[in-house]
């Protein structure tokens, strides 16, 4: 019994550590996959339209979380660095920060209902209402 409990705890921990982040997009988005550099360009707002000239809307998560940390680690930029980039754009009249959402459920709802939008959630929460452009491994 003890062995069973130990194995179960180990497996739970193992699968949690392997949790992936899914970069999701509205079904109207004209691409089915995305590379890291393009994702960075959309999130730092260097590029703000898709290749069909439709605007890109990006979403962020409001509160600190494992998924948020993993997403920004993948981009190679800390959340504070991103805030600094967005604030510079806002104060220069060049753009504004993305809408920060309260939860992954809200992220899913917003991305599925906003044309041209992208966001990120844990892979296990992704549904068929959105496209998955890339899955980020935790390692």
């Amino acid at each position, binding site marked *: 019994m003890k062995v069973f409990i130990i194995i179960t705890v180990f497996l739970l921990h193992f699968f949690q550590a392997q949790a992936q982040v899914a970069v999701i997009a509205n079904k109207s988005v004209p691409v089915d996959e995305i590379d890291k550099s393009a994702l960075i360009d959309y999130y730092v707002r260097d590029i703000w339209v898709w290749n069909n000239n439709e605007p890109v809307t990006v979403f962020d998560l409001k509160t600190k979380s494992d998924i948020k940390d993993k997403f920004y680690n993948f981009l*190679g930029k*800390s959340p*504070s*660095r991103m*805030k600094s980039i967005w604030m510079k754009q806002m*104060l220069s*009249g060049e753009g504004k920060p993305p809408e920060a959402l309260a939860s992954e459920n809200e992220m899913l709802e917003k991305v599925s209902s906003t044309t041209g939008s992208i966001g990120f959630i844990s892979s296990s929460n992704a549904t068929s209402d959105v496209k998955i452009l890339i899955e980020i491994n935790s390692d």
Partner: protein
Amino acid sequence: MRKCLIIWIHLILILTITISQGQSREKPLSIFGYFQNSFFHETGYTHWIESQSAYNSFNLQQLNLFLQKDISSGWRAFVDFQFLNTFSSARRWGSFNIEEAWIRYRLNEKFTLKLGLQIPIFNHLNEIKNRTPLLPYVVRPLVYETSFSEFIAVDEYTPTSAFVQAYGFILLKNIKLDYAAYVGNSPNISWQDPNRQFESQQTGIDTTDTILLGGRVGIRIGEFKAGLSSTIDYVNFFEGARDFIDAPPSRFSEIPRIRFGGDLSYHIWKLSLWAELIKLTYDDDIPNVSINKFFYYATMAYRIGDDALVYINYMKTEEDITELTVSGEGDPTSFQLIQLLTGRQNVHVPSCGFSYTLFDRLAFKAQFAPVKLKGNVETLDLEFDINFNYYALAISVFF
């Protein structure tokens, strides 16, 4: 008749609905801004040039109010009002400026056109020098710090405004090649002087037929950014010396002023590095006159957690100085030259500081800067060396 009336009513209803739908497609007007309140203490100094007692002061260092509206697809209007140094028209201190009022058309990342009063792109800090929420400093790098204007000719080092600017970047795999090119006024702007009794001229306009031309080219690779900037315009500052220096009068007018700038920034892990240099040259051909200048700074910062930043930085200006001392009364053409002083002044400021951000919109800042002014007056064979310390605290709020 009744049928016509019904048709008219329908037409009016359809028109009203169409107009209101059109208006609902417009984005609302955004109003936002920031301010920075500071407290500083400056230690005194005593020198043969002048003495200054220690003093300290609270100050509303800066308040900027922005209006922004997207007026159509790709078109944005932006206005920036700036209040400095606890502005009060009743008490006659501080200043109020319309810092920016422009409209921007963005075609794509390769091309954006900005028309109207704007702060042009020059080096790294010029565009954002007054955006206090973006900067960890209380005392900004010297040529961007208006409170040091009594020591340093801050308005000369960088272009303060332009009126037409095109900018963007070209993407080559993972490399971004930035460019900006702009046009503006020369610095010879007509201003309101109650003593200038014989001139009645529109103020705020360029009094010459020359213009400012400038631009920047740069490269970005990941978190590495570097660039070169340059401007040229033509100044009439020297015309006042025409009657006192033995040189053809034509040499004193519309002298080319050339700025060269370089900037570098890099972010890695929790470290950030920013550095700039600016060389300012007046291409005059006037004997014994030089007011060329040089400036550089470097800042290294380390982020502690998400909200705190510590930094050290070093800044230096090197300026050639030329001053004319004249005497006389009444008609300026009768004034006599007493002496022409030439020399050099260097300002060194190593500093360190700290900033802490509370919930994104509120930042606390602290900075210590020992200031050293060193120089000489060549024509009098005199040297000066003035030292004082500057302690500053600030709170920066973004709303």
